[in-house]
């Protein structure tokens, strides 16, 4: 068993740590990270207020109204974790990232290098703290599950004592809530008690998935031994003409490459459980990281990890140049069940590359792509997003938006305008939504024209509940040879568009 010993390095509350680092949130405020409505991580201060994992947001906020919450963002977690992973790697080569906040490494290397596991643990924790300021705990045991639990309580489990170490731990350490509830009612409150139940009895009483938990409780490795070393030709690589320096470009590259790797594996009925990511920069820096997963990775799972990893590397200060080549190598594979289909087809790639090229020249904001948005005015109804960003409208354009204009001006504008009545007084709009007088002349961009006809006013009182309220009234105005859209806000008229 000795060669399977693993050393796990665990950073407590990592999603909270990452969110606080990203936002500059201090340690004294109660913080929780949420996935949807459920709390996935809390700060120590929040725990002191009674906030717990798996609690619903609603309950947590009613217990602690001052709770600061963040949406769970694995990419953020990964980005801030990369320096930690690097720090570990400096002392213990061959690390594998299990998830942001948790890395594992075969224990043999560091233990013999530092002469004892205790020494190794101490050095690693110190080194992480010096390099990154992050707090970490170390555990050593014979399986990843056990090593992780050992890290939670900062202990080195002696060789072959893993099952013994796990015995007194509560069954709630298993990530299977319904099974845990039933085990407790049966009086099987510890992992040891659960482990003592014969395997066939477990299978017949609780069903198949419970046997995996049973293995974990016994300190056995989580996967049975059908895993294998994959052939080297399964790896995929891509060399970029324009070195990848920006995260959005990296995300694109990650998707294309992940797709190819997945195809390779799927064609042979395989799925990846450990993924190696290699990158070489223009200045020939070599970057390498292995990600370890509990379950076979889906295409999306691969793409996520590649994106997180590239994000981590690209935001790192030490990188002196862009990434020239990227290689994905399956380090460990299992027989793949029917995982999902590919990410996309290869059409439109020509246009995509051209636009990415222009972004390379002008910056990400240089190429915009319109999304039809919800709203009433011609400007609100179009949202321009940098090419490559997600094209999601800010407001649902399929809603009816009563009162929106039926025709939009082909040219938009934002110039002050003066609209007057026959007596030369400015035309206004009353609180009961009527014009104060008939408009007779329009002055805009230094030119005064006779108003031959007009329509409106069409008042809007939108988003009054939000920080960006919009209260205005629009009219259309015709002059002898042109048509305009005017808008009145803050007691002044503006030209909003020209119907040319």
């Amino acid at each position, binding site marked *: 068993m000795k060669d399977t010993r693993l050393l796990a390095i665990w950073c407590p509350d990592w999603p909270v740590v990452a969110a606080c680092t990203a936002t500059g949130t201090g340690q004294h405020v109660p913080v929780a990270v949420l996935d949807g409505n459920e709390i996935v991580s809390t700060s120590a201060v929040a725990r002191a207020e009674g906030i717990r994992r798996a609690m619903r947001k609603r309950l947590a906020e009613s217990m602690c109204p001052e709770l600061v919450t963040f949406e769970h963002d694995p990419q953020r977690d990964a980005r801030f974790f990369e320096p930690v992973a690097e720090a570990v790697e400096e002392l213990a080569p061959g690390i594998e990232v299990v998830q942001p906040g948790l890395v594992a490494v075969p224990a043999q290397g560091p233990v013999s290098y530092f002469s004892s596991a205790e020494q190794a643990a101490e050095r690693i924790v110190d080194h992480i703290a010096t390099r990154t300021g992050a707090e970490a705990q170390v555990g050593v045991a014979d399986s990843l599950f056990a090593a992780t639990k050992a890290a939670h309580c900062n202990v080195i489990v002696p060789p072959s004592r893993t099952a013994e170490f796990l015995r007194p731990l509560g069954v709630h350490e298993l990530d299977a809530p319904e099974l845990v509830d039933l085990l407790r009612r049966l009086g099987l409150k510890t992992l040891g008690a659960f482990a003592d139940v014969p395997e066939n009895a477990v299978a017949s009483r609780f069903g198949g998935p419970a046997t995996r938990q049973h293995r974990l409780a016994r300190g056995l490795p989580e996967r049975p031994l059908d895993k294998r070393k994959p052939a080297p030709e399964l790896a995929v690589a891509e060399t970029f003409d324009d070195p990848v320096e920006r995260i959005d470009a990296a*995300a*694109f590259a990650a*998707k294309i490459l992940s797709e190819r790797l997945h195809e390779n594996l799927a064609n042979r009925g395989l799925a990846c459980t450990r993924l190696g990511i290699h990158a070489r920069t223009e200045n020939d820096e070599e970057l390498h990281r292995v990600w370890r997963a509990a379950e076979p990775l889906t295409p*999306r799972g691969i793409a996520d990890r590649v994106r997180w990893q590239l994000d981590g590397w690209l935001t790192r200060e030490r990188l002196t140049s862009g990434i020239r080549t990227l290689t994905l190598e399956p380090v460990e594979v299992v027989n793949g069940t029917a995982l*999902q*289909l590919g*990410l*996309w*087809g290869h*059409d*439109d790639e*020509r*246009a*995509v*590359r*051209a*636009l990415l*090229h*222009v972004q390379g*020249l*002008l910056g990400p904001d*240089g*190429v*915009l*792509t*319109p*999304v*039809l948005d919800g709203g009433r005015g*011609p400007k609100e*109804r*179009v949202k*321009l997003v940098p090419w*490559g*960003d*997600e*094209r*999601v409208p800010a407001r649902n354009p399929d809603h009816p938006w009563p009162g929106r*204009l*039926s*025709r*939009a*001006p*082909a*040219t*938009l*504008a934002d110039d002050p305008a003066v609209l007057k009545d026959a007596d030369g007084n400015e035309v206004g709009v009353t609180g009961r939504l009527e*014009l104060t007088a*008939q408009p007779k002349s329009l002055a805009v961009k230094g030119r005064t024209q006779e108003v*031959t*006809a*007009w*329509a*409106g006013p069409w008042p809007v009182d939108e988003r009054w509940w939000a920080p960006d309220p919009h209260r205005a009234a629009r009219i*259309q*105005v*015709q002059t002898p*040879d*042109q048509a305009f859209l005017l808008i009145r806000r803050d007691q002044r008229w503006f030209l909003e568009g020209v*119907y*040319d």
Partner: protein
Amino acid sequence: MSRSATASLAAFGVNRASELTSTTTDHTTGRVLPVRGELADLLPWGGLRRGSTVSVGGSTSLLLALLAGATADGCWAAVVGLPQVGVLAAAELGVSVQRLALVPRPGADPGPVIAALLDGIDLVAVACPLPPSLARRLTARARQRRAVLIAFGSWPSADVELTAESVRWNPLDDGAETLRRQEISVRSGGRGSAGKPKHVLLTFGEEEIELPLVAGEPAESDEPVDAGPDEVDELAAKRATTRDRPA
């Protein structure tokens, strides 16, 4: 596929569904990109020939209308140097804006930007003034890359020139009606076979509705119509006197 994966595809302007399969072959192999009905009469090829340069003047609506047919058919279009362009108007004129890219400010040296676009985009509309030499080089690039270059404003070497002579809308009424229907009077000219001038009146928007809509008489009244207009006061006065007043 997970929802977020689909969303990220959409981020790159890719639609998974039938749209792709139905359009790919046409627009990659077709030599002439389609345009809307009356516009076809103005263009010597009945559409926009790949590799050609067309100049447009006098109406933004006209420029946008030219992009409608091709983008709806699966082609990509880019508009360079026109930050005030009304994208919503473009959509109303039939442009598929999910295949529209905007480069509002191509910078001090727009040449490489436009050239890069011509490499991969089917229609590139350019609205920024360029030195004639650069304009000619871009025309050549368009020809080489089989893209259509549309110049908004004058262009030294356009194959076709389209000029809007007037833009008119339905008349508004004081305080009522809305702008609904647009008429653009367009003249075309240009080199070679396109050189013969033509006039076309383009209309965009809704038609007028005529009443009666239904032949025949409405059903005869089987009950008396209620009291006539002069009776309000009378009625009210009567009620005022008969009404029991609360104490």
